[in-house]
């Protein structure tokens, strides 16, 4: 994440346009991305809203 380029002006505009609910979802996804090395994140959407975030984390043991 640290090596990512600075968002372009258009990306910054889109980020500024996000609703509070959308920011909350992105923040939670970012928390998961920071926490796990390998895995899957699934967003469950109903009526246009994210109602659940599920994840699976994978570890190689040998």
């Amino acid at each position: 994440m640290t090596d990512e380029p600075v968002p372009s002006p258009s990306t910054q505009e889109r980020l500024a346009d996000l609703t509070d609910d959308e920011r909350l979802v992105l923040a939670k996804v970012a928390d998961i991305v920071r926490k796990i090395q390998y895995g899957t994140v699934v967003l469950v959407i109903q009526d246009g809203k994210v109602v659940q975030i599920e994840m699976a984390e994978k570890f190689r043991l040998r």
Partner: protein
Amino acid sequence: MVDRAESAVALAGEREATPPKLSLRGLIKTRRSTSGEMLTAVDNVTFDVHQGEFVCLLGPSGCGKTTILNILAGLDEPTSGKALLDGRTISGPGPDRAVLFQEPALFPWLSVVANVEFALKHVGVAPGERRERAMGWLENVHLTGYANAQPHELSAGMRQRVALARALACDPDVLLGDEPFGALDAQARELLQNEVQRVWVESEGRKTFVFVTHNVREAALLADRVLVMTAAPGKLLEEQRIYAPRPRNLDDALVSRVVSEVHEVLMREVGKGGTT
């Protein structure tokens, strides 16, 4: 609104902060084959299971997963390494660990309710309380109407439900399952899987379940953690930690994804000499 995965992650963190319920440390099990050759069934396996976790052990046939379960049950001993329950060496079977086998192993001469009552007698439940508790568990597995039937009058799925009721009636801390649904048809298997999910959820973190299976879908459906083993000699290969609410369905996107990943890993192992 979107807190459920977060709370599952937090709960897993809390569990890991407590001492493990079951613990294997450098477990090795060797056996002598019929030709006299020494075979390693389990090769240096170390893992912990915390109270309230649901762990599935998955691996090719002959990888030692049943051996591990038998050692946890106290039915077998390690050649070296340690198997611990609440920090103490496991020295034999006990009522704190119930085991569900592939075959329900009911007493054929006892009625359904008497089979459950027998287990309650074994753990010291007073005679006056046994019938009510046994009937309560039969109700939980939807078999009230068959309380006085003999095991041979039931279908395979119903017999396994009796075995589940009998195992849980004694209120064990740990439920160990050795391919408990392996011999059932698809519908009976699904019913039992739902039943087990429900019982585990209702125990609210008190009960620890460890199931051995070679059914990848079953593992992804039921477990918090899926431990995948190598072909013999069995070592731990990969772990999947699944943070998704229950009851789960096989159609759930995350379950499907985990099934696909674990299946791929398992097929590579089978290609190295194991069989499913």
